[in-house]
């Protein structure tokens, strides 16, 4: 059983049918329940909210692929946004400089995560848990625990482009998804990630040093958390040192709903994106229904489980469509 399951997972690695079906079911459900859900505005609003989570989920996908985990993404995102915020507000830095500052901050945190965990063989769970605290402390430190209001200066990234309806951030995030999926399936780096996640020892015995690639993956995750911070900042037009608390769980949830294995070696960036969409649609839908907080929590929990359960049927579904 498990073996044959494994088998077909691999045969159809980017099979997203099950997830798309879950998404459609959710949309239809909310569409019938709520009067205004099924409208262009709803979807435009919804997709403009997801760029930050999307790029962070991409980084998380890579980290999970190599059998690591990154708990620090939420804090690092907040730290990067904070750095950008103070660069713009307190130091009057040009936007470009501030952007680079935020990205570098993310890269630095990620590299530290990767280096400490890979070099000294400390579980990435512990290292990134430490970084979660450190980066959050850093965010409080640089902002002096104040929310920084930046205003329109950075808004152009996160606001809908006139005539298009979607923001530059969303377009960038989708580009990141596409590139990351391409990297994963077409490049050496992608293959090495999968190999490290399946059998790190065999990678070493093949004469490839996993250290470098592992650090690279964590560095990338940090960089993408920085990018997420920029998106978040431009969306809210303010840098809040308390933002992104608990984001790591949301990101991992999206990735795992997308079928990426927590034990490494198997995953897809596109599916993680579908996972993000599922979570976003669910949140938006529940908010539109305006159900009470307890019910909202209970429904959220059930949908998360049901989505993955449903996705188990991707095989029969896949076979059904292939036969046609």
């Amino acid at each position: 059983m498990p073996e044959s399951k494994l088998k077909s997972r691999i045969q159809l690695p980017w099979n997203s049918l099950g997830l798309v079906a879950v998404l459609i079911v959710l949309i239809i459900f909310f569409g019938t329940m709520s009067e205004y859900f099924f409208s262009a505005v709803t979807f435009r609003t919804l997709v403009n909210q997801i760029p930050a989570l999307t790029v962070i989920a991409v980084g998380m996908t890579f980290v999970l692929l190599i059998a690591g985990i990154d708990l620090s993404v939420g804090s690092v995102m907040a730290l990067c946004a904070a750095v950008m915020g103070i660069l713009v507000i307190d130091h009057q830095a040009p936007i470009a400089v501030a952007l680079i500052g935020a990205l570098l901050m993310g890269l630095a945190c990620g590299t530290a995560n990767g280096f400490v965990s890979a070099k000294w063989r400390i579980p990435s769970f512990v290292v990134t848990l430490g970084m979660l605290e450190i980066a959050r402390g850093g965010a409080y430190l640089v902002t002096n625990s104040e929310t920084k209001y930046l205003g329109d200066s950075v808004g152009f990234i996160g606001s809908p482009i006139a005539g298009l309806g979607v923001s530059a951030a969303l377009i960038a995030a989708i580009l990141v998804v596409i590139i990351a999926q391409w990297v994963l399936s077409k490049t050496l780096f992608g293959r090495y990630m999968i190999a490290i996640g399946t059998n790190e020892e065999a990678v070493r015995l093949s004469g490839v040093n996993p250290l470098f690639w592992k650090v690279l993956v964590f560095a990338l995750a940090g960089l993408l958390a920085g990018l997420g911070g920029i998106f978040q900042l431009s969306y809210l037009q303010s840098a809040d040192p308390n933002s992104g608390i608990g984001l790591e769980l949301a990101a991992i949830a999206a990735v795992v709903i997308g079928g990426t294995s927590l034990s490494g070696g198997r995953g897809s960036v596109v599916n993680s994106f579908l996972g993000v969409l599922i979570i976003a649609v669910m949140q938006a839908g529940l908010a539109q229904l305006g159900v009470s907080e307890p019910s909202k929590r209970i429904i959220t929990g059930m949908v998360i489980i049901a989505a993955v359960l449903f996705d188990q049927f991707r095989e029969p579904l896949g076979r059904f469509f292939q036969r046609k």
Partner: protein
Amino acid sequence: GSEKEAEDESSTPKSQPVRVALIMKSLANEYFINMMEGAKAHQLENAEKYELIVNGTKNESDLAQQVSLVEQMMAAQVDILVLAPVNSKGMLPVVKRAIDQGIVVVNIDNRFDQDLLQQMGMSVPFVGPADRAGAKLVGQEVAKYLKAGDEVAIIGGLPGAYNAQQRQAGFEDAMAESGLNIISIQSADWESAKSATVAAAMLSEKPNLKALLCSNDSMALGAVAAVRQAGRTGDVLVVGFDNLSAANDLVQSGELLATIDQHGDELAVYGIEYALQILHSGIIPENIITPVDLIVAK
């Protein structure tokens, strides 16, 4: 009995300065940072009078952590405990123990549950703003721009949090008074990103929505972002609470209609001065309800 003990202690001559512990809900929130800084400045001016230890919980709902902070302060044998409780009921047992140990306790910011306090036979002086009154004030400001029957929605804090409930009640008071129609109340756990999601959904679900009343400024920032994204700035009013500097900027730019300043920086100072007074004189003063100010565009 507890007051007597406090008296006894104060009457014994002391070589060491008085030790004051200020325990707040969170040290990661501008409001409490202001409070802390006010207290620290005060301590610098009165360095010969007392020493100050400041602690806060990690998030604004962590009762267990705050209880353990109080216990640690009891272990560290402080003389005065100035407390902004995360939970108006749950903190009482440990406060009782602190009082029994002879510590002078002053309640600031978030008021203990009065019934329970009575039931337990304690009286703890309170210094703080009236959340409910403040929320009513900002709600009345909204009402000025709307007419009876208009639809409004509330974005609340963490369910079950005392000040979340108080602020919501204040909003409801004001709305009832002016005949406005609350069509939705949802929680966004005090967070801006969550608030943006909730606000965006409300905006598309309720096309006639005229105002979003947010229980704190972080959530107001999220709501403003959602309104802006939906292109309905000016059409939908947003108000917040706490007067964060970022919110203040937004008020001045007009995207946020109003917020409430609770003068957090003075709160802790009042609390400490009160406690010192009790410690030295043994007289328990009246509760003080500190003023709240409505902040609108200049």
